[in-house]
């Protein structure tokens, strides 16, 4: 039985009393509304009933009109609410764009936010920001939903009493005064690593007032190993910056640098740029256990258990030393045997050929020795300074691993902590299991926790301070290269809340100063009064503070220390290996309450709403497990019950345990999703552990994967071919594009100034899923929930298909973003009985929601199956606050209508009207679709095919282009560019 109660999203509508948006916001966003469906801010006096919106009213009206003829009553007249004072920068019905930065692992990622009448609705990358270059990752794209999340904590409370901000400040001031008496010896701060200069200044002031206090940095997913590796290699911790633009050969030692690690947006862009020109292809070797996005993009994916990867790195070093004369690597290398030796030799030869143009990276999961080895190899190969740069660390915290947390726990156990200020996300949940931090925190008299949502830590914290969302906060952050950005709010806080700056300042009796003044005054202090206001405005407009990048340094390498570290490095683990990994979507779990991310298919496994223990087909067969089976995982005495997902290409005798699920205290979205891998994670071995025991239980949990078949069954769908085979394949590619003979007279588009089209370069695509998420945010695509995904009713207009090729144990993969391809000879159109999907003069396959009666015939006849149907009312069940998230330029679809990719026609029309009002025409590359805009790899290009100079026209005319399912004669406007692989001929 399907749930009749509309199981969507899970968040119950707010009670009537909560419906009003807070006053602070209203004054910003009151406006003269144009007819926008969902974007209408809740009216002040007489809000429309949430459950019986105007749209459903019209449905009923239409039904009753059909039944009862004239007995229709009119809906009440809509109110138009005008501003009292119109903010000068706001023109109602026109969006504005603001640059800001969002935190990612303590660093800043520059973004540009689209705002409608004061409502931020869409986050894009900031092209001027060195970490974004215009692309955006999943956390950034999903952040607006976090902002409007109705489950956010509002206001402040201490010991269960709600407090006003000023009252809380008074109480904190008292606490601080008491603590200051002994120099803060009993004050501890548990924070996340950050790069914020403003936080740095406050921390310095706190140290001055509370010299006895200690700040503990904790991040469940940190890059400590990388910094420790550079400390081994160079004597002091350094940040490593990789540059792929000039890297011809890349060896990744367990680094998922294209999707989840490091400067992945920039790296993906640089990597992709080297995948399109057959003459200038780079080659990526990825040694990894888990099948990652990076592994999927690799030319050679070397399937190894995580604890054996260091050994492989040493084997390569040994081969470099022995066969290629890099004597410096001789003490670091250790030859391997068997197949690994052959692989290592081939990789070494390739790296040696590309001296100064190669790159070795180590992943965050690998021990410091691996990072040091990578540094030594890069040094020996002459890559340092070319493809790899070193900088003084940008983060304030050099170390944020479990050791600090363990020390804090010991202090608490000893009763040495009176007040613990927690600004780190949910440490009770993320802390190593053996610390049992939740129980410990109850022993601390004062726990002040800054949190956005109820979680495991709010349950034990005495004082909870609602955290402001970055889109409603002032602050500053630095990019990985040191470039600073000012974080500016797009909207006044939707709920009474504070930032980390406000909370820290409260202990300095400066809580009333406000984050704006703290940040601004800090920058004034650092850069001087002279022309500061102009500079400040410039920074806010640009989203970056120009000239703040940290300069590279070139310290000497200490080979002996590396050799010593390698000698002391842990050997491969015994038994089944447990690999802990941040989730591609919810990271360490902090984004688990984000329904967009929960519903986004995992880039590799296509799993939604859950995590699962990943293991290889062989291991699964040995254990008698299959996808969806529930197994008991036991590791060093702790156990969890977890569903299993058989992941082709996973290393044998190893299990990947994605972090961030299985929450015990959480909101409606994260509750019930997945299992808690933290429960098995030890401080001693936070990434790779041995001796995992897996016991099948016989029970099952259905896993909501959006793709069930990962093979192409011999059909030519997502084409991938080796570079060497391209010349021979050109004729076949030629056959797979362009019009087929037809008895129908062709519609002539030659006279049209615009023929919209898209080109998707599979060679660039890494399959990260950012396009799908950007599309969801842009086009008001609803979240349908796990049970609906299980029934294959997900609503994403754009999906990323992943196909495996080759043996199931070691498959290569190719990912293919697929949305409506806008066939010129569209099969969906002629079968619609009511002309609800028709063709525009410019070649768009238009879907007219308001005409659709929902026969779904179009979907049946769509060979690409890119149409989505509103089987239930997926929108009005949401809290009214979420209506603020909707893009007012896109109709919110009702129950019973079909929908699909529109090529972001709202952006086309905005560009058209802008151009025509100005008396011009739309540039060939001017209209950028949401997916294109987000794509870090620039794999998607939209534009005007009628303009031969446009990028899309040039790509569509390229030799790698083919049409998906060309033989059907649908003549799609979206063309695909076959993926090129660049395998090492020595390994053929």
């Amino acid at each position, binding site marked *: 039985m399907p749930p009749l109660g509309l199981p969507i999203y899970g968040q119950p509508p707010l009670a009537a009393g909560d419906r009003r948006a807070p006053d602070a916001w209203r004054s910003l966003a009151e406006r003269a509304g144009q007819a926008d469906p969902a974007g209408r801010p809740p009216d002040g006096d007489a809000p429309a009933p949430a459950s019986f919106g105007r749209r459903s009213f019209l449905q009923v009206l239409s039904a009753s009109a059909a039944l009862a003829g004239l007995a229709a009553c009119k809906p009440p007249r809509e109110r138009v609410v005008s501003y009292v004072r119109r903010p000068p920068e706001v023109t109602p019905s026109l969006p504005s764009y603001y640059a800001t930065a969002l935190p990612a692992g303590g660093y800043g990622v520059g973004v540009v936010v689209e705002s409608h009448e004061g409502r931020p609705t869409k986050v894009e990358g900031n092209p001027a920001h060195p970490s974004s270059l215009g692309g955006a990752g999943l956390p950034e794209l999903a952040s607006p939903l976090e902002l409007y999340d109705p489950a956010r904590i509002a206001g402040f409370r201490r010991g269960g009493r709600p407090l006003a901000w000023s009252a809380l400040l008074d109480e904190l001031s008292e606490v601080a005064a008491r603590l200051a008496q002994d120099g803060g010896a009993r004050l501890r701060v548990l924070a996340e690593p950050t790069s914020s200069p403003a936080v740095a200044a406050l921390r310095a002031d706190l140290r001055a007032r509370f010299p006895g206090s200690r700040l503990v940095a904790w991040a469940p997913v940190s890059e400590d190993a990388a910094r420790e590796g550079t400390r081994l290699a160079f004597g002091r911790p350094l940040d490593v910056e990789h540059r792929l633009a000039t890297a011809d050969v890349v060896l990744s030692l367990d680094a998922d640098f294209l999707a989840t690690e490091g400067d992945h947006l920039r790296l993906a862009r640089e990597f992709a740029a080297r995948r399109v020109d057959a003459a200038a292809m780079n080659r990526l070797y990825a040694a990894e256990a888990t099948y990652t996005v990076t592994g999927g993009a690799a030319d050679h994916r070397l399937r190894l258990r995580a604890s054996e990867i260091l050994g492989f790195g040493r084997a390569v070093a040994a081969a470099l030393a022995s066969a290629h004369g890099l004597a410096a690597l001789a003490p670091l290398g250790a030859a391997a045997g068997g197949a690994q030796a052959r692989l290592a030799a081939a990789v070494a030869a390739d790296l040696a050929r590309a001296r100064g143009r190669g790159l070795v990276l180590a992943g965050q999961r690998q021990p410091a020795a691996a990072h040091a080895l990578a540094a030594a190899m890069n040094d020996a190969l002459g890559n340092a300074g070319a493809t790899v740069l070193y900088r003084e660390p940008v983060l304030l915290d050099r170390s944020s691993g479990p050791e600090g947390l363990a020390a804090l726990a010991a202090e608490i156990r000893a009763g040495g902590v009176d007040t613990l200020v927690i600004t780190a996300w949910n440490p009770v949940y993320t802390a190593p299991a053996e610390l049992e931090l939740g129980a410990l925190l109850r022993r601390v008299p004062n726990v002040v926790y800054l949190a956005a949502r109820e979680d495991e830590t709010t349950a034990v914290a005495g004082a909870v301070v609602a955290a402001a969302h970055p889109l409603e906060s002032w602050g500053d952050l630095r990019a990985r290269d040191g470039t600073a950005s000012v974080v500016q709010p797009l909207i006044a806080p939707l709920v009474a809340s504070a930032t980390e700056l406000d909370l820290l300042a409260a202990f300095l009796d400066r809580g009333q100063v406000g984050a704006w003044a703290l940040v601004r005054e800090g920058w004034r202090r650092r850069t001087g009064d002279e022309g500061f206001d102009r500079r400040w405005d410039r920074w806010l407009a640009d989203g970056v503070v120009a000239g703040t990048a940290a300069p590279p340094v070139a310290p000497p390498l200490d080979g002996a220390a590396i050799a010593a570290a390698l000698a002391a490095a842990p050997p491969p683990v015994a038994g089944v290996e447990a690999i802990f990994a941040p989730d591609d979507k919810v990271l360490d779990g902090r984004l688990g309450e984000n329904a967009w991310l929960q519903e986004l298919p995992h880039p590799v496994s296509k799993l939604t709403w859950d995590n699962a223990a990943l293991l290889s087909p062989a291991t699964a067969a040995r254990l008698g497990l299959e996808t969806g089976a529930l197994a008991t995982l036991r590791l060093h005495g702790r156990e969890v019950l977890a569903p299993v997902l058989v992941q082709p290409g996973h290393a044998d005798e190893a299990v990947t345990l994605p972090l961030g699920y299985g929450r015990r205290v959480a909101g409606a979205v994260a509750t019930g999703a997945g299992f808690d891998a933290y429960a098995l994670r030890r401080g001693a071995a936070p990434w790779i552990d041995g001796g995992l025991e897996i016991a099948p239980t016989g029970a099952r949990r259905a896993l909501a994967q959006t793709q069930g078949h990962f093979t192409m069954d011999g059909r030519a769908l997502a084409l991938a071919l080796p570079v060497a085979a391209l010349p021979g394949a050109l004729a076949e590619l030629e056959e797979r594009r362009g019009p087929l003979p037809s008895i129908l007279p062709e519609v002539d588009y030659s006279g049209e100034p615009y023929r919209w089209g898209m080109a998707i370069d599979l060679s660039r695509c890494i399959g990260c899923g950012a396009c799908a998420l950007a599309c969801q945010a842009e086009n008001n695509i609803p979240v349908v929930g796990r049970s609906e995904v299980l029934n294959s009713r997900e609503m994403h207009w754009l999906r990323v298909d992943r196909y495996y090729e080759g043996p199931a144990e070691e498959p290569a993969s190719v990912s293919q973003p697929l949305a409506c391809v806008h066939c010129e000879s569209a099969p969906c*159109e*002629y079968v619609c009985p009511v002309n609800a999907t028709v*063709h525009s003069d410019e070649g768009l396959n238009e879907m007219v929601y308001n005409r659709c009666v929902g026969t779904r015939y179009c979907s049946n006849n769509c060979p690409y199956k890119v149409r989505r149907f509103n089987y239930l009312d997926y929108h009005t069940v949401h809290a009214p606050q979420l209506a603020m998230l909707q893009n007012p330029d896109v109709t919110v679809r009702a129950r019973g209508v079909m929908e699909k990719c529109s090529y972001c026609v709202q952006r086309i029309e905005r560009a058209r009207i802008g151009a025509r009002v100005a008396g011009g025409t739309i540039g060939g590359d001017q209209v950028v679709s949401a997916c294109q805009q987000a794509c870090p790899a620039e794999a998607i290009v939209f534009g005007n095919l009628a303009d031969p100079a446009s990028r899309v026209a040039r790509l569509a005319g390229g030799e790698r282009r083919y049409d998906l399912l060309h033989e059907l004669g649908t003549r799609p406007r979206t063309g695909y560019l076959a993926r090129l692989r660049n395998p090492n001929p020595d390994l053929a």
Partner: protein
Amino acid sequence: MRTWLVAEFAGEPELLAAARALRARGHADLDLHSGVPLHGAEEALGLRRSIVPRLALAGGLSGAVAGYLLQWWTVGVDFPINLGNRPPHSPPAFVPITFELGVLVAAGTIFLGLFALWGLPRLHHPVFEVEAFRSATIDGLWLSAGVEAEEADGVAAELERLGARRIERVPEEGEP
């Protein structure tokens, strides 16, 4: 004032003979009533071929023509739309509805035409005044003749002579 003579006969040959005889005498307003169609009744009553086939043909043709014109004008002329590269005026696609409307209108014409030809609905009819006439739809064989009142006696006698088992008179107006 006319009178209806309603006479029951024992067998079909007698009935048909009576009809022929009366018609030969110039009585045109004759009818036979039976539970099943009688062989030879048309000949006996001198009826010509039914025009129902011609009505059906006209109905069917006009329905089909209207059906085609409807499709051609609405989607070919009034609001042509590019649907998957198909020409707005697509004759092959218009065949089914043309055919269906032809059949529908033909069938409707037959049905309504029959009622018009029959003069039905006519719940009230002089023959129903005769209680025994109820057998007409069961097993009875009846002849009814509308005659001028003054002729009634003569015709009744004639019917009796022709073998009627029972003869009833019903005045055209009012109850007997």
